[in-house]
């Protein structure tokens, strides 16, 4: 579903964000991308939704050669992807319903499809009862669930999450992670960039660890730190 081969990314200021990264993610996988701030997690995600182009290497997302994708074809790629951010990126002047519908309307979707899909997405994230509220009237967790509903409303095959729990308290974080798991169980490939050790250690999913732009570990059912759960580190 996602394939990176020998991918490097060097920014114009000379900073090497990614260094010869090779990564395969199969359809239906749930993968944590971990590492400290500045290790290249967000840079890797930005390459996948073609916000940036790699300096070297080959990137394939759902069969599309992203590294060779012409600017005009980027919208088509992004309709296969859902992207969720730490800061939610919601429009404050639109209601929950309008924010979610907006993602369909701007792609030229038919009104009957919008009317069918938006309630489903809101139902999935448990916000049907707040569909008329504005983002400013919601808690952080609810705002993130709105952002997830918006990311899912076009039925993407892949969901990319960049620090989705970065602005949330532990209780809301758990809620969001459970929601992402439910989405994954429906067949959506989920890639979550995070430095939340508790979440990673509790969920025991595939963990890809980045350090200085390189993949240093890739474990099937891993912990945030190689081979060690949070409790073991504290006790050790």
């Amino acid at each position: 579903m996602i394939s990176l081969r020998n991918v490097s990314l060097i920014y114009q200021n000379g900073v090497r964000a990614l260094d010869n990264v090779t990564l395969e993610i199969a359809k239906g996988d749930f993968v944590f991308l971990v590492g400290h701030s500045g290790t290249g997690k967000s840079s890797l995600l930005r390459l996948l939704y073609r916000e940036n182009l790699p300096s070297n290497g080959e990137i394939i997302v759902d069969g599309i050669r992203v590294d060779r994708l012409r600017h005009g074809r980027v919208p088509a790629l992004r309709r296969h992807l859902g992207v969720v951010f730490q800061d939610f990126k919601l429009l404050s002047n639109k209601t929950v319903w309008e924010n979610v519908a907006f993602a369909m309307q701007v792609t030229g979707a038919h009104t009957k499809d919008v009317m069918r899909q938006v309630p489903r997405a809101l139902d999935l994230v448990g916000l049907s009862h707040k569909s008329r509220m504005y983002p400013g009237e919601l808690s952080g967790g609810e705002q993130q669930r709105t952002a997830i509903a918006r990311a899912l409303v076009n039925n993407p095959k892949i969901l990319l999450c960049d620090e989705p729990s970065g602005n949330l308290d532990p209780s809301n974080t758990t809620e969001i992670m459970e929601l992402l798991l439910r989405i994954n169980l429906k067949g959506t490939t989920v890639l979550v960039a995070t430095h939340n050790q508790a979440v990673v250690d509790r969920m025991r999913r595939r963990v890809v660890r980045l350090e200085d732009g390189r993949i240093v570990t890739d474990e099937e059912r891993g912990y945030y730190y190689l081979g060690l759960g949070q409790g073991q580190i504290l006790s050790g």
Partner: protein
Amino acid sequence: MDSGKVKFFLGEVLRNFTRNAGMQATAIGTVAITIVLLGAFLFVRSTLADVGKDLLDQIEISVYFSSNATTAQEDALRSILVHDRRIASIQFVPKKAGLAELSAQTHGVIDTSLLTENPLPDKLRVRVNDAQLVPAIAQALRKHPGVANVVFPQTVVERLLQLGYVLRRVGMGVIALFLVVAGVIISNTIRLTVFARRREISIMQLVGATNMYIRAPFICEGLLDGVVGSLVAVLILIAARYALWPKLILALPWIQLNAGAVNGPVLIAQLLLAGSAIGVVSSWISVGRHLRA
């Protein structure tokens, strides 16, 4: 046609248009000022061109026959001129009529009754269709047998022709300058509205909206700015035209000002078109810059 899509699109345009009222007012004001200046300039140019054309139309070539010219020579020249398509009209003034004219023109200051002999020659008054041809035709007429002298107001013709040329050239430059200046100002104004909505645009890009779809509401906004701005300008110009024209005629009695020289509906259509074009082109450029960045 999906009415929901149309409703969403128009709703977005209207919402954004009314939300950034201050910026829209700036853009509309800029269009209005530019179009007022442009309209006033076009109006003055047309009026001046009409005055110039009117003066040129009145220019005539006086062909004086020599005292020994034969009737056959005079008739031959008249015959040639009658069949020449460049000639608008000819009028033969025999020497007797010429003397009477002179007496009338000088209001009796020259007492022609004292003359023992008519000193004036026979004369042809020639008017041509195109004032630019006056010098060339006059030159050709001089060579005709029986013609003693050919006179026309050479300096006036040259100055008027030069004025027309300058008006056309300067006019094109001034119009281009107006449009560019207005375009730059509106472009910057729309860049501000684009900047104010950068978050919305980034979300649109993120969920896979095409650049054309993102551009469309801004283009509509630019079009609205252009249309509303130029409508305001047209109203100002119409009001100014009715308020100032009578005063202008009184202030410049020596110039034959002709209100009909300007084709009002055509000028209004041109101004509306110019305003709309400025709005559309400048918003297209501003959003394009943002989308490429």
